[in-house]
């Protein structure tokens, strides 16, 4: 066993992704930044994913393969987090792939600014078309101050909309994650939002890199977001957990407006993209319980940054 700790721990939950796994792993193995520990958590795959992982591990001793019974990506990331020894943490998904300089550039920035985490841009890759969607996502430029590093208080946007609530376009300082006891929710979908937004509100130093460094695969087969019918309530559990965390940090007085606006935004997105009959089930829950619990009920129209979303809300409750 090696005694020296690696600089970056890359954590990848793997579940039945044999089709894209090699492209993902190759893009990590070929990173220009070499001082890595690549922790692959096989989440009870039933295809050949584990064999592929073992094959890579036999050729590259930076790999660590952990097997667990299927428990979802959130649990797999927590497993990886617990065994990580690196100074920095990168949480990647097994169907995405990355620019070879991603970790080098993110590492350079986080060290230079002494940041708690650094965010970079990404785009989307459509497998069927074998092409990238031109829209860049990740960082909303008008929300970001022209100086770095900064905290959420410097964001000129709903703070929960300045970055996207996923973990793979960010590099985290491990001591920061440990100090604030950040963890992933162990649920089927929306399991990284709590982690990402908890980090956002407790971080004193955030940096960004305005460069596309990661490629997210869209419309991948077996992609969880396509089968959200089974986990239609997860987004709500994530929002409630975030609300609890904001309250526990003593910041709800300050962040209530941004939270409620984001809660409505995220709820409407989930609602619009859900198919019947689950959609009606969700509608009933929202009307009778969830809009109340999220603090949305009773807020006047001018409380909402986006009046279109407010009117969508009115349509549901009327």
């Amino acid at each position, binding site marked *: 066993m090696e005694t020296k700790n690696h600089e970056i721990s890359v954590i990848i939950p793997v579940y039945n992704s044999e089709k894209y796994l090699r492209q993902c792993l190759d893009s990590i193995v070929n990173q220009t930044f070499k001082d890595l520990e690549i922790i692959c958590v096989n989440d009870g795959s039933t295809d050949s994913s584990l064999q592929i992982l073992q094959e890579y591990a036999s050729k590259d001793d930076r790999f660590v393969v952990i097997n667990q019974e299927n428990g979802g990506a959130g649990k797999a990331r927590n497993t990886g987090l617990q065994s990580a020894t690196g100074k920095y943490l990168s949480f990647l998904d097994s169907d995405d792939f990355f620019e070879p300089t991603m970790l080098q550039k993110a590492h350079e920035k986080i060290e230079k600014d002494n940041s708690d985490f650094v965010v970079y841009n990404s785009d989307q890759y459509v497998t069927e078309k074998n092409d990238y969607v031109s829209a860049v996502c990740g960082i909303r430029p008008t929300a970001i101050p022209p100086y770095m590093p900064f905290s959420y208080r410097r964001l000129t946007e709903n703070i929960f909309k300045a970055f996207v609530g996923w973990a793979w376009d960010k590099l985290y300082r491990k001591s920061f994650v440990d100090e604030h006891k950040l963890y992933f929710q162990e649920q089927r979908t929306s399991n990284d939002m709590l982690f990402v937004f908890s980090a956002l509100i407790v971080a004193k130093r955030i940096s960004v890199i305005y460069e596309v460094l990661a490629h997210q695969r869209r419309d991948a087969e077996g992609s969880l977001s396509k089968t959200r019918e089974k986990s239609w309530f997860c987004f709500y559990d994530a929002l409630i957990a975030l609300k609890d965390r904001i309250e526990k940090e003593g910041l709800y*007085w300050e962040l209530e407006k941004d939270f409620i606006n984001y809660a409505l935004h995220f709820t409407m997105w989930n609602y619009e993209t859900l198919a019947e009959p689950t959609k009606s089930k969700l509608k009933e829950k929202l009307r009778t319980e969830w809009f109340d619990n999220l603090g949305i009920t009773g807020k006047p129209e001018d409380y909402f940054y986006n009046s279109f979303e407010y009117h969508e809300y009115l349509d549901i409750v009327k």
Partner: protein
Amino acid sequence: MQKISILIPIYNVEQYLRECLDSVVNQKLKEIEIICINDGSTDSSLDIIKEYAERDSRIVVITGPNGGYGKAMNKGLDAATSEYIGIVEPDDYVSDNMFPDLYDIAKKNDLDLVKADFYKFKTNNGTKEKTVMPLDKTGTHYNVVFDPSHTPEAVYFTLNTWTGIYKRDFIEKYHIRHNETPGASFQDNGFFFQTFIYGQRAMIVDTPYYLKRIDNPNSSVYNRDKVYTMSIEMDWVMDILKRDPEIWERFKYMYWWRKFQNYMFRYNVLDKSFKQEFMNRFCMEFKWAKLRGELDFNVFEPSQRATLEEMITLADKYYFRHNLSVSWKIKKLIPKTIKDFLKKLLWGKEYGNKKS
């Protein structure tokens, strides 16, 4: 224990230092401690301080590598032992009755802080042109004890830290210090805000004692690293105010008022190459302050109110509209009197209503 510790943060000021030190050494109040903090000067400043220290045992010399104004001041605050604390900048000087007078007022009224009017002065062919600068332009708050922690309007007072004295017990109770950012980066803003949000017994007096040198007008900012030093200081102030929701609630409108003044002041001295980015940020910050309910237009003067409304509405298009678009340049040709008349016609009534 001495009555006042006078802090003098020193960085490359050999030209003015003797005049400053003489005015402090010759104070009519003798029970003082004079703390000179040399912040890594590369001229003869340190020699001058040492020379004075040899002659006067009340002078304490602290010296170290350059660490910026805030760090130097904090070293002075840490070292101070007297009942009160005063600050004199090494290119300014003070009249010989400043510290005895302020000490008497502070003692008599048991004050956390007392501040006085001051002069600004220019030297023209060897003669000094002095102008009195009032702390309170309305002239209504002088010579009475007030509670700044519950008087947010006191943030309207001219912002400086060096025209007053502060009770050291008060400074230590709230651990009031400066932001330790590099160089001179407006660190007096943070100190000023802390003394006003925490102070409970304060007075301003309408006698000027302190002479502020303005020979070196604010020169343009050409260095990119300096463009946002004011923003960073005001960020620090916000983080302090938000430690306590009640304090933020009480001071938020005046915080944004102060920030507006500071940003305008900063914007005007920036090199043109930085102005657009700075103004975009300026507009976006105020747009979101309004959305979050942190702005009160009523605390602004009507002319500023109009500017601010436009900045918020146009946001990142404001700079373009004012500097690059042709139609705006044509508008600029309209004489001011006609513009004022049109403004009154368009806005006058609305502002009248808002005020009531």
